[in-house]
């Protein structure tokens, strides 16, 4: 019981930190709401899918920007996709970075886009590592026989 309690406390702290730092917004809470006995792994599934899709997108983006001349329309389309996914997940900072990226695309500034891409990548990997840690904790809790409490 002590272990579970400790793990749960850790999980709560981690989640709260994520919200506090603005990495996640209330959309993530909505996702958590959709998780119930009928759908126990919903959040994990969505998050994994997000990671897969995003990594693919990021590769595409990197490649597109290295082309010469840069097809800004295509780049914009990818960023739009990325923005959509991240906002569905609730990855706030990733989404914001995407917004800036899109502005640079409109201005057709190569340097700006490159920097924006860096920012997006940075944010993405940040959220990825944190979410992976969170999911791991949840697995541990479930393995130890506890339940994942709802966010207050």
């Amino acid at each position, binding site marked *: 019981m002590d272990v579970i309690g400790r793990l749960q406390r850790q999980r709560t702290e981690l989640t709260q930190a994520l919200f506090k730092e603005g990495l996640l917004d*209330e*959309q993530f*809470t*909505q*996702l958590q*709401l*959709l998780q*119930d006995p*009928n*759908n126990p792994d*919903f959040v994990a*599934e*969505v998050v994994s*899918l*997000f990671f897969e*899709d995003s990594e693919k997108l990021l590769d595409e983006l990197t490649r597109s920007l290295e082309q010469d001349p840069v097809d800004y329309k295509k780049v914009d*389309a990818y960023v*739009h*996709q990325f*923005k*959509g*996914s991240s*906002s*569905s*997940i*609730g990855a706030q*900072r990733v989404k914001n970075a995407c917004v*800036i990226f899109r502005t640079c695309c409109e201005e057709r500034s190569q340097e700006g886009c490159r920097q924006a891409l860096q*920012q997006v990548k940075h944010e993405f990997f940040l959220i990825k590592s944190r979410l992976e840690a969170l999911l791991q904790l949840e697995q541990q809790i479930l393995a130890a026989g506890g339940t994942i409490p*709802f*966010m*207050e």
Partner: protein
Amino acid sequence: MDCNCEEAFWPADDLLMRYQYISDFFIALAYFSIPLELIYFVKKSAVFPYRWVLVQFGAFIVLCGATHLISLWTFAPHSRTVAAVMSVSKVLTAVVSCATALMLVHIIPDLLSVKTRELFLKNKAAELDREMGLIRTQEETGRHVRMLTHEIRSTLDRHTILNTTLVELGKTLALEECALWMPTRSGLELQLSHTLRTTNPMAVTVPLHHPTIIQVFNSNRAVAISSNSPVAATRPRTGKYVEGDVVAVRVPLLHLSNFRVGGWSDSGKRPYALMVLMLPSDSARRWHIHELELVEVVADQVAVALSHAAILEESMRARDLLMEQNVALDMARREAETAICARNDFLAVMNHEMRTPMHAIIAMASLLQETKMTPEQRSMVETVLRSSNLLATLISDVLDLSRLEDGSLDLDTRNFNLPTVFREVLNLVKPIASVKKLSVSLSMASDLPEYVIGDDKRLMQVALNVVGNAVKFSREGSVSVTVCLERPEYTRDPRSPDFCMVPSKHHCYIRVQVRDTGIGIKSQDLPKVFSKFVQKDSSLNKHFGGTGLGLAICKRFVNLMEGHIWIESDGLGKGSTVVFIVKLGISEQINEMDQRNSLAVHPTPVYSNFNGMRVLVTDDNGVNRMVTRGLLMRLGCDVTVVGSGRECLQVLSQPGQNFRVLFLDVCMPDMDGYEVANRIQEKFSSHERPLLVALTASTNRSTRERCLNLGMDGVLLKPISLDKMRAVLSELLEWGSLSDSPRR
């Protein structure tokens, strides 16, 4: 035979006999002619009532005459026949004369009484004549008065009135001179103002306490005055003035205050004018009573006419003044309007101009914060951010306040959840409060309505400002917020008895009380608290920061919401309580469409009754698909997902499809949501096809409008929360479209 005739006793007296003979003859003649005359004259006259008497008298005289005539024959010896005739006539005469004598006894008193009556009637006639004369004179006087009055009253000009009076009086009474003395401005003297004959009256003044004047003023009748008195000396004397030729009468000068209901107030302080009338000096005329009466009546009429003229003058003056003022006011109003327009234009421009760089600064500073910086740099950036936030708030505040002041700010009323507002406010202040180790508590009454109609943004602004102030000005202790329904019977703020709440079925009054244990306010500063730019103490400003505008804006917002705000404090160091009451509409239909994404999380999952409703989701983004599917499954729908427009159309063309709702992402490569919608509309009639809801991340109005114009039943903004999806589906099923889209 004895006869009476005497024998010629005295034959020598033949002369005497002869005299007697002649006398008898003449007597007989006379006796015969008198009745003839009588008859002649009576025949001539028309009226003579005593014919019978006349006849009698005539007979008597005739017989007497006959007797005398016959006696002519008796002087000489006469025969028996003559004697017989003589006796007969004498007998007859005797009879008639006795009868006449008897008759006269009746008649003479009658005749006398006739005479008396005649005299009486004559007297009466004389009297009547006199009276007739009097009446005629009176009537003439009356006519004169009427004419004079008519002349006087036919004009409202004071000078014309006075001149006409003098002229007409002069004419009517044939006066030598007629003068009018008016009281001077000082009220202590009378000044000659109008005369009849003299064209340029000398500016003579007579003091009021002259005995003559006092005498005249004390009586309301025309008074004869001495011609030596100063008021009568209007021109150099020619001819000898006889006493009693000059008459003076007072003319009361009436003011509006004299026309009081309930009769005249006979105060002795009323000002009078003096009218002096002079008869021609060389005539022997005297003042008659009726002339004096005429003069008195005229004087009264003049008084009335003058007062009317005065009233009219004043009302004309007042009207002119009002017109002038109107013109001035109109101009001032137009100037003020121009100024306001100019100010608004200026503010609008400045607002935009100032906010754009402000936003740029804030945005860039925020982004800068995210990058890697040295701690030094980080603190600098934080300062920049803090200052620019403050500046942005200040700009907004000033703009809001100026718009509030001239009433160009309107509340955005809509349905909203009341408890949520206060919970959010508390959440916003909790961080700062916890840093200061203040405890913040919120207690909401159980009878508070959950959904109300009002401007939630402004209400939150007010609540946040008040609670923020409470937190700001408290160094330690607690801040407690109480929200409850206010009933009209509860005690109100005694300082503003004109704030009264009108109870109504569709509105309620919410009372919010924020009590803190802070530094408190001195009782003399309490009224100043809500003034603009006034901080209690300028030192506080430096210590606590702030613009001083917050409470002023709050007050104005509260007033806009038909409420009242006030502050109570027991003194310095004893904390303070801010109470505000606002009027909110009661929401009759809970409209969940306006519910925002709130942080409130439902502890237990709620299944809704969409069991088995078939829904099709079209989105090219895998993650989005999954999330939307999860949402819909959670709500008990039977979800089918497709990844492109083409697939969507394919699925729909399959026979037996019975999707109720179709969610379409508008931004898809290849075939976007718009085209899908078009194709669907072409293919299916409006009753066969599923309800179309567009999903978009764009907050652009044009996107929305485009969707709606295409005939979509709703537009949803991504990302969607569970509650929102539930609400959307409920509304779709209930109404066939979303509340902000046109109905099918």
